[in-house]
């Protein structure tokens, strides 16, 4: 296996059709299962995943030469957004699977689930597992979406800097422990991964790692947009039908203001970029921070519009708030995301002859 960045061209019409399929999956499969998946029902999680695999969305970025459709990187975020209107956790599985598969040159086994594990520690890459002589050493203390995966693509570091390496389930030296009390995106259960000289296949260095990083940031931004869209839609519908204080609550200024701000975020900062062939890492970082902050604001207000009902598990609105929070924190907190954006901007300025 080796890293590849090849991708096929997809025209707008084809992509719209694919988005419709993803939207239908979200509406008809992911959404009806979402509360069960959130409650930890493993069978519901399996059904959501296998239906996603049936329409091939889990491998849309797998390169053509590896037997996949090889869609452009820029298609991942819109697809994630569509699926996240059904369930954010399932959408994260889709993102992590595609980021992992995008780095593989040979086809994975049918129905195998792969997950990308970003460097998410307090100190970023410094905390990431180390790749030494095709073996990984270290730990991923909160690998979201990695629990039960058949294969893992790990963001790690080698002697030259950031790198990617693949590890398959059952490899000696790989140990997985479940994580309890996951606040959000529970459709992508987290695990603690320990690597004690676990045999790993190098997938590439700095460029491969940068591509994976950009993809996951763009993907999480897409998920956040999908979650926020769903929260906005639910709050709007509820505000039209819930009667309080002399009429539907949409007549009250406080509710109108919250709904208007949701629309402002959705049509402003939260708007999806046009699907492009590649994903610019800086744009992806900016989108990740802006869209996830917007999603937290929108989902928190959506719970507020629902009032006491919004705080109860049965309405599903509080789940959107919890899911949005995890988007804000994954793969790293937004303050660290902004710091990474600044570093990237400084590097670019320096290399273009500006700045110091």
């Amino acid at each position, binding site marked *: 296996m080796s890293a590849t960045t090849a991708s096929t061209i997809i025209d707008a019409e084809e992509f719209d059709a694919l988005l419709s399929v993803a939207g239908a999956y979200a509406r008809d499969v992911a959404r009806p299962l979402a509360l069960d998946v959130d409650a930890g029902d493993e069978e519901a999680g399996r059904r959501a995943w296998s239906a996603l695999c049936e329409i091939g969305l889990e491998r849309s970025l797998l390169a053509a030469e590896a037997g996949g459709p090889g869609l452009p990187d820029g298609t991942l975020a819109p697809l994630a957004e569509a699926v996240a209107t059904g369930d954010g956790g399932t959408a994260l599985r889709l993102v992590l699977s595609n980021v992992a598969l995008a780095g593989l040159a040979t086809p994975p086994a049918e129905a195998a689930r792969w997950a990308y594990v970003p460097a*998410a*520690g*307090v*100190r970023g890459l410094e*905390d990431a597992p180390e790749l030494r002589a095709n073996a990984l050493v270290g730990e991923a*203390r*909160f690998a*979201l979406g990695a629990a039960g995966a058949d294969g893992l693509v790990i963001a790690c570091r080698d002697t030259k800097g950031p790198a990617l390496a693949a590890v398959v389930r059952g490899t000696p030296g790989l140990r997985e422990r479940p994580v*309890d*009390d996951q*606040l959000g995106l529970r459709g992508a259960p*987290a695990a603690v991964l320990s690597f004690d000289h676990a045999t790993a296949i190098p997938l590439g260095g700095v460029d491969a790692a940068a591509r994976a990083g950009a993809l996951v940031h763009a993907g999480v931004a897409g998920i956040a947009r999908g979650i926020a869209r769903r929260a906005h839609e639910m709050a709007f519908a509820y505000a039209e039908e819930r*009667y*309080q*204080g*002399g*009429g539907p609550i949409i007549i*009250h200024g*406080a*509710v109108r203001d919250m709904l208007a701000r949701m629309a402002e975020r959705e049509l402003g900062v939260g708007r999806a970029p046009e699907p492009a062939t590649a994903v610019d890492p800086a744009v992806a970082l900016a989108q990740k921070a802006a869209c996830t902050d917007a999603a*937290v604001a929108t989902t*928190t207000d959506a*719970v*507020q519009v629902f*009032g*006491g009902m*919004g*705080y*109860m*598990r*049965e309405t599903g609105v*509080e789940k959107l*708030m*919890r899911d949005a*929070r*995890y988007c*804000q*924190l*994954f793969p*790293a*907190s*937004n*303050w*660290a995301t902004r*710091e990474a954006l600044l570093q990237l901007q400084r590097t670019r300025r320096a290399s273009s002859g500006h700045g110091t």
Partner: protein
Amino acid sequence: MGAATLTPLREAVPRLVDHPQLHGRDLRSLESFVLRTREFSRSAIRPRALELDRIADGDPGHFPWELAAEGAKLGLLNLITPRPSGGDADQFCLRAALVAEEIAAGCGGMATLFGAHALGLTPLLLAGPGQWDGVMKEVAASKDDERPLIMACAITEPSAGTDVEHHKLVRSAKLVSRAVRVDGGYRISGVKHFISNGNVARWTTVVMPEDPKRPYETTLAFLVPDDAPGFAVTKVEHKMGQRASPAAELTFDDVFVPDDHVLGRPGDGMAMVAGVLAGSRPVVGGIATGIARGAYERLLEWLQADPVAGGLLHHQQVQLALAQMYEAIHVSRQAYVDAATEFDSISLGKLMANVSTRLFGRMPAAVRTNAVAHRRLTGDQSRRLMIQLMQRSVGDRVLTQTLGMSSLAKARGGDTAVWVAGLALEIAGLDCGALRPELEKCLRDAKLCQIYEGTNQLNRLEVYEGLVAGLSMHVLDDAAAGMPGPDGHSGNGAMR
């Protein structure tokens, strides 16, 4: 590095030292009580908070009797019980709010458990001396029991939530519950939901109108025991957070309430609701401040103890975030202390200082509980007298202003709790080990503070009316003017 705690109280809230109603001894006593509660919260509540949360996630009706009993021994179920009833409350709202912060720093749900109990008792306190024996004494007497007596207060309904807690919006609220006057009392029917402690309360104070289409004019309150025929707990909610305090749906199917368990007269209910909320919202401000403090303290402990995480303290962004958290917690605390002292010294304080009230306090219990005296003290004339006392000593303008202050404390605190808990989680990130589920719980608990006791939006309308526009709601004056009583007499019924 300093934690945003209250050590000592006079440093955290310096103006309490010069407060006219807090003499040196009172302040020392208050400080000592707060410190005892802090110790209880740190040693008994915080270590069990996550476990309780997990248990209640699987069994939403679970009630932590063991911790409630320990708290009762400390006095946490008698925070507002006046001396004639066997309590020792001098600063009612202030003490309850300060204590709420301490408990909430350990677990937001536990703070709501004790707060909701006080909410259930407040209508009895406001109903006047006629209600200070009976149930209030039962509560005080149960403090050493394995299962102490728990109270709840039922206001909201499935079709009417925030609007029933506002004196204007209630006029158009879609209430379904109804009280029907019968010989010797009332028969009440309806469904109340989101009632904290509702599934375990021995007594619930229930607010219902005689005419659901005219709730403002006809609402009154009732005291209902859990074994009343027709009363049932029909659901326990599965909440996002604050799970240590269960929230239940209660159904009243033609439940008979005798006259001596009727609080107020038709139309007095809104005055009662306004008084209860003016006293309970600063406590919610305390709970919210405590949740925020709990998140901040947990984060700080982790940053200081974990060698890897400690590196974060070198980032100026993290230093500024910690400073902003400290600042928000401090401001929220001052807001609820202001609201609570105003309630104690201006609203309730004036009522408690009234000659008639003080005379009752000195009346021997044997006289007070005599059957004839009791009937008089809980009868219609006595109910009218209490409203008149409140009208004369407090008045609509003062009550509106107090409600505005209490709403300010509640809204500010709720926003602080959500913001601080979210920021703490953002600084720590997902990869922070055992700290993560604790901070996540703080965030889940915090969100309720923006919703219960009226949404923050409704509370800010109260701030506008009471503090910005200087308006007066007309709940006391109208009630004192003489709404139709249970005996069918009606006064002039002047409405504005």
